[in-house]
């Protein structure tokens, strides 16, 4: 097991280094001077030269690269060009918003998706299976901003059950009402993915010998499905849900924009619109770290749950 952990950690470090290097070069290799990009087409040569000094672009490339790498590792991701505050502080300000949205949507996705997936699997090739498969395919066809706008129009503008802007909240009730629509928007899409993954994992597990043995011993079908089979099917479900993190992050960006909610997504789009080059660089580091840590945790969880993994 320890060799497996060391190998996964090693891969995580290499991935982090590779992405950091990619981030560093992506802004330097693309056509155009970053200083010019920050200041726009009308900037004078003096202003561009001053911005190059401020961004550290006048120093040798190797030095810039080393400073960027060490800075990123120390948590020093530079100062936002727009607000003048450290990138890390800006990120920490909005991180709780994104985290609560992500956790709430994963929760909603799991409590809807897992039972639906099990229901579809035990009714394979019957009406519940077809309906669930079609509904989940429809769910994952929704661009997050389209479903978000539909929820907003129906529940916030027409029925007025929820606030139009999710950033305003007073008390626990207000907080829940503000969180509900964005979390449902992301959660329903997540539920579509989880339903499909649970269904196929359950189909595989239900055809295994231990399920037949349990049935032969007279264990009730309900217990076989929900206690024996689901427990085994959940391992691949957790892993695959980890792999959908990229989809979840992309959808959370769109959800935050639709519901005008603070968060990492709104921060990155703001940085793009205002050409906040250091903020953008910092955000890419953050996303990479999040993805790597979650992938590492899913790998380790899988390794801990399934001893066969370490043999591979």
């Amino acid at each position: 097991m320890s060799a497996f952990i060391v190998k996964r950690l090693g891969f995580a470090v290499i991935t982090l280094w590779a992405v950091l290097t990619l981030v560093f070069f992506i802004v330097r290799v693309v056509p155009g001077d970053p200083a010019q990009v920050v200041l726009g087409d009308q900037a004078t040569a003096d202003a561009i030269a001053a911005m190059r000094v401020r961004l550290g672009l006048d120093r040798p490339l190797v030095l810039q690269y080393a400073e960027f790498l060490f800075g990123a590792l120390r948590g020093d991701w530079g100062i936002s060009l727009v607000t003048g505050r450290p990138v890390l502080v800006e990120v920490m300000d909005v991180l709780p918003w994104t985290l609560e949205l992500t956790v709430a949507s994963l929760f909603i996705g799991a409590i809807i998706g897992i039972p639906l997936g099990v229901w579809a699997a035990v009714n394979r090739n019957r009406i519940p299976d077809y309906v669930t498969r079609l509904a989940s395919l429809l769910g994952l066809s929704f661009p997050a901003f389209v479903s978000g706008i539909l929820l907003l129009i129906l529940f916030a503008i027409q029925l007025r059950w929820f606030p139009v802007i999710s950033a305003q909240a007073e008390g626990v009730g207000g907080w829940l009402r503000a969180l509900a629509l964005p979390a449902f928007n992301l959660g329903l899409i997540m539920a579509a993915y989880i339903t499909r993954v649970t269904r196929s994992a359950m189909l595989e597990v239900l055809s295994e010998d231990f399920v037949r043995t349990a049935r032969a011993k007279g264990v009730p079908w309900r217990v076989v499905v929900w206690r024996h089979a689901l427990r085994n099917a959940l391992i691949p479900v957790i892993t695959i849900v980890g792999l959908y993190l990229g989809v979840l992050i992309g959808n959370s960006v769109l959800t935050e924009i639709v519901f005008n909610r603070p968060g990492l997504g709104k921060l990155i789009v703001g940085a793009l619109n205002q050409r906040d080059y250091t903020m953008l660089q910092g955000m890419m580091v953050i996303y990479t770290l999040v993805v790597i840590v979650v992938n590492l945790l899913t790998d380790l969880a899988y390794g801990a749950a399934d001893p066969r993994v370490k043999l591979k």
Partner: protein
Amino acid sequence: MSATARPRNAAIAATIRAFNANKTSWFGLGVFILVVALAILAPWIAPNDPIEQDIFSKLQGPSSTYPLGTDYFGRCILSRLLYGARYSLLIGVVSTLAAMLIGSTIGILAGWHGGRFDVIVMQAMDVMLAFPALILGLIIVAVLGPTLTNIIVAIAFTSIPAFARIARAPTISVKEREYVEACRALGFSDARIMFLHILPNIFAEILVMSSLWLASAIRTEASLAFIGLGLKPPTPTWGGMIREGFENILDSYWLALAPGTAILVVVFALNLLGDGLRDAVDPKLKGEQ
């Protein structure tokens, strides 16, 4: 010749039979063909010019002149929807084809050569795959500028690793088969074996992936346009139309409904088609995501 042709024809016939068994995949194919036809015929069937503004008829409801009403600038929503389909499909198809071509080549090369080359290339692909596609696309388009070519490049770039992975796995199993051994014994070049003998055998799996990634590419293009990184106005794009409707959501929310439905219908149709194709190509995967 006929002896080798027969099993392949039988496999194709079995695939078509499996595809036929799933009615929803035919529905998906039908809807997709209809949307492609409408997009191609847009200049002939669109009732109005998609960018001509008629300020005196802004925000009108459906009428005989404007079947789906008008937007904030008095432009015909139906005409913009029809012309918008052209951009969505063009960007989706070209970026998916480019990703398929580059990604599959990388995957086949990695699978064929194996060893350290395979490890390095596939780890690089995994790194790219780890990064959220929409964020990567956003950054590429923001840095390069929101032109048709750059949007295609950004979307293609984010889909390359998925094609590399899907092409690599079957290459590894196919390269051990006897007929590949025979090709080697006959002294065929690596390139000839890879692209004339292995590629045709793994093409079905790549094609399935393409229909699913086409759906994803159309969704990503719309998302980029919604965020403000689509083709510049007044070019009609579905994501851009939703953005314009969303900006005035409190007083004219219906503007976002027609393009939103259009994207959903196309993406859903392509997913139905991809699902059916996948079941047909590999019945073991029936219903898996």
